[in-house]
């Protein structure tokens, strides 16, 4: 174990103000240096990624008058994976008069994150949540409304109030289209230059500062260098390390991993969210998993048969022979327990042999009672598009027979370490949205990803990046700057290497094998023995990849195999770090469940005396032991205790 990593100096967030928590964000906005409007046009910012966190930041910084250059790997910024978020976005508006407040959203999020997030960050997120809804409505986001014309809300897991705003089952799409339109408006205004079908392959660091990126034009293969006074990574999460996840096929860790290799600390990589309600796997050819929104748990009831091996048609199983196991074990939250708890409970009943469907890897999500109570039209109005999607994928009609669902990798709470300003430990490198680690601790609550992405992009970053940029413009750098030259050459060499191996195995076959190792040993339940095994197998597979992968075609064309090969190569390195992080954290918390650390009734058991810290990892070389830097977490406002949803 000791040889797997070494421990370095502790770190701390030097930007977070002290004093009463409700005043900290005001305090920071006041202390942050400003850039006057005339000087902004002399300053440039690169933004990688155009999801909620990237598009909102690009639009807002463009509106402020900075010179923004934006990149996405898709053919249009509108396609970033935020678009697939279904259920909703939280905000402490208290429009329901049900006891909600900024403080309650803060409290729920800290507790939901199992006391592994920063209080200051989460409080700010809750404060800003209110402004996000206003902003989105002003942009024309068509949120669901009631007959009086006011906004509707629903509930999500882990909370007892209704604070989730939604646009049918397509909230992410509508929010992203709002941000995308604001971005396109700035592109037309000339403040943002957009490069679609460009993938970031390296970070340029000059004199210790982030000064640019190396990107590959995915149509021509040209390797380009772009420079700026600051770089923002809004490149999303790394759930695709598992191959099968609810992420889009192109989601990858490359942007953040390349920054990590250049010195940016990677925090809490083992914190992975496994979403409880996804459509189960149907075969080996499966390329991705589809989420069924958590909002379904508002009205659907989750159950399995009481008896092992009861393979009757679910409609024939009488009420008394069903086990509504979440309602039984967690009477006060019932089907709306947080995601980590719902997922593990599903795994447990399947491990007992009571799972349903092919391979016994599924549980029922049943709407029969909801249809009886509300009538089918009301259920259709609320969930119609999700039911249609389910039927299209499985060929079964969920109005008539219960849905089958199973947990799947959905979100990664870990990411690059950032301070209160969202700046990484590399000056000038900022990280927003899912790509950073900051707000969700060890488990994210439903409808909080959209909230964080937009909080970071619309309101936080545009009020903190000025503090850094006020010292600019920085010394001019270009293609001939040695660090930039070196970065571009490294990228070209890596591409050449991948194309020249000409082995016998496809990129996807390696990716699938890596994914199955991760799912087995670093998925819903982790053990010391399993993690050691995983690390060993990942290293072996990585070596084999670099000896035997087959990448067809050339660089100077649209080459999707080459794109995937580069991403998978980075996933190998990340996977090893995830396992090391999971191994070192000998406690269970949120989405990180170590079998060795559980309560008598099988709940996650934290060890606050030893592990109440952020684990920020420093890269030292491929296959070399990383260095662990701890940032201690202190709780002044929310008392750390065992989470209870009973």
């Amino acid at each position: 174990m000791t040889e797997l990593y070494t421990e370095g100096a502790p770190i701390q967030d030097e930007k977070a103000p002290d004093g009463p928590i409700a005043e900290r964000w005001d305090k920071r906005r006041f202390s942050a240096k400003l850039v006057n409007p005339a000087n902004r046009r002399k300053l440039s910012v690169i933004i990688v990624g155009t999801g909620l966190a990237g598009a909102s930041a690009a639009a807002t910084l463009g509106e402020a008058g900075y010179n923004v250059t934006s990149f996405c790997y898709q053919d249009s910024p509108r396609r970033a994976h935020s678009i697939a978020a279904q259920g909703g976005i939280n905000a402490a508006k208290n429009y329901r008069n049900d006891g909600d407040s900024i403080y309650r959203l803060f409290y729920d999020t800290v507790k939901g994150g199992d006391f592994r997030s920063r209080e200051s960050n989460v409080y700010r997120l809750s404060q800003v949540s209110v402004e996000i809804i206003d902003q989105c409505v002003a942009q024309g986001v068509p949120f669901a409304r009631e007959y009086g014309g006011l906004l509707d809300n629903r509930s999500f897991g882990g909370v007892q109030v209704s604070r989730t705003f939604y646009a049918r089952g397509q909230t992410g799409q509508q929010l992203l289209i709002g941000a995308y339109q604001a971005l396109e408006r700035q592109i037309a205004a000339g403040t943002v230059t957009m490069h679609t079908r460009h993938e970031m392959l390296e970070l340029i660091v000059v004199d210790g500062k982030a000064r640019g990126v190396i990107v590959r034009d995915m149509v021509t293969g040209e390797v380009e260098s772009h420079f700026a006074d600051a770089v923002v990574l809004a490149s999303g999460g790394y759930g695709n390390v598992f191959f099968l996840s609810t992420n889009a096929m192109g989601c990858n860790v490359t942007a953040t991993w390349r920054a990590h290799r250049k010195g940016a600390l990677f925090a809490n990589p083992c914190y992975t969210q496994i979403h409880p309600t996804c459509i189960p796997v149907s075969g080996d050819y499966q390329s991705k998993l589809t989420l069924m929104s958590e909002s379904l748990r508002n009205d659907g009831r989750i159950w399995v048969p009481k008896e092992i091996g009861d393979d009757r048609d679910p409609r024939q199983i009488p009420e008394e022979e069903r086990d509504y196991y979440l309602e039984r074990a967690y009477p006060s939250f019932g089907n709306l327990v947080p995601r980590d708890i719902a997922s593990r409970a599903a795994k447990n009943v399947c491990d007992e042999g009571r799972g349903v469907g092919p391979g016994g890897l599924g549980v029922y999500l049943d709407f029969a009672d909801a249809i009886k109570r509300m009538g089918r039209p009301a259920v259709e109005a609320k969930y119609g598009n999700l039911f249609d999607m389910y039927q299209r994928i499985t060929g079964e009609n969920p109005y008539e027979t219960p849905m089958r669902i199973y947990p799947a990798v959905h979100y990664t709470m870990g990411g690059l370490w950032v301070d209160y300003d969202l700046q990484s430990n590399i000056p000038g490198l900022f990280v927003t949205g899912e790509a950073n680690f900051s707000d969700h601790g060890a488990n994210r609550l439903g409808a909080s990803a959209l909230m964080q992405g937009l909080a970071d992009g619309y309101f936080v970053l545009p009020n903190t990046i000025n503090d850094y940029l006020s010292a600019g413009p920085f010394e001019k750098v270009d293609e001939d700057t040695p660090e930039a030259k070196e970065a571009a050459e490294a990228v070209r060499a890596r591409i050449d290497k991948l194309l020249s191996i000409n082995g016998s195995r496809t990129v996807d076959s390696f990716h699938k094998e890596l994914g199955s190792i991760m799912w087995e040993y670093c998925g819903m339940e982790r053990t010391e023995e399993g993690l050691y095994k995983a690390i060993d197998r990942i290293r072996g597979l990585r070596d084999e990849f670099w000896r035997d992968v087959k990448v067809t075609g050339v660089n100077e064309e649209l080459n999707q195999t080459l794109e995937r090969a580069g991403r998978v190569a980075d996933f190998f390195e990340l996977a090893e770090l995830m396992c090391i992080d999971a191994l070192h954290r000998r406690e269970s918390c949120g989405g990180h469940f170590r079998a060795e650390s559980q309560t008598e009734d099988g709940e996650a058991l934290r060890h606050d005396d030893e592990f109440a810290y952020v684990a920020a990892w420093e890269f030292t070389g491929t296959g070399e032991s990383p260095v662990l830097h701890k940032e201690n977490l202190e709780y002044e406002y929310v008392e750390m205790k065992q989470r209870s949803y009973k």
Partner: protein
Amino acid sequence: MNITLRVWRQKGKDDEGRMVSYQVEDVSQDMSFLEMLDVLNEKLTVAGEDPIAFDHDCREGICGACGVVINGIAHGPEVTTTCQLHMRSFKDGDTIDVEPWRAKAFPVIKDLVVDRGSLDRIIQAGGYISAPTGTAPDAHAVPVPKTDADRAFDAATCIGCGACVAACPNASGMLFTAAKVTHLGMLPQGQPERAARVVKMVNQHDEEDFGGCTNIGECAAVCPKGIPLDTISQLNKDLLGSLASGKM
């Protein structure tokens, strides 16, 4: 089941393309259409051949990246995105033709991948509400009648896939443009720019070499999100009103 695919292969934008036949064996009916292409691509790669390039990303029918013409129909026989089409819609022994979107405004980049940047430029021309960050009043300041909000939402569900263009005999992008005009035009927040928006967007649409709309309706027939054809009537109404009033 076993399938014969005839796929459009084109090396680059300036190269000539042609249909090439492939046999795909042991296709499961639970596979999505794109997973069937994945299986074929794995086989081609192992054989050292160039796999078929196609755009795709979320594979859950919402990002709008995927889209090919299958047996002459944009997105194929079901009214959905290509990624949500499953092989249970075909039968053993079928021959399936697979082609890219064909439109002057969507030049082919490679195989089944086309450049849809023209759609982004239509949005740039005016498909937004100017509401810079921080300027918004409280979300409840202006109630929106539910029927208007719902109509705006129905139009706003457009995923920008381009199937409407591919299906149109004129290769018109009018359904795409009309969806945005209707989405923003139904909301009180969209009113100040409504008259100018429609004119600017239609001008850009024409500049991008999309064809004119002759109300054939093929677009709405293939739209995976069911954008209604009457959005085009709404666009025409707004356009006439705008031109007549001279407010643009």
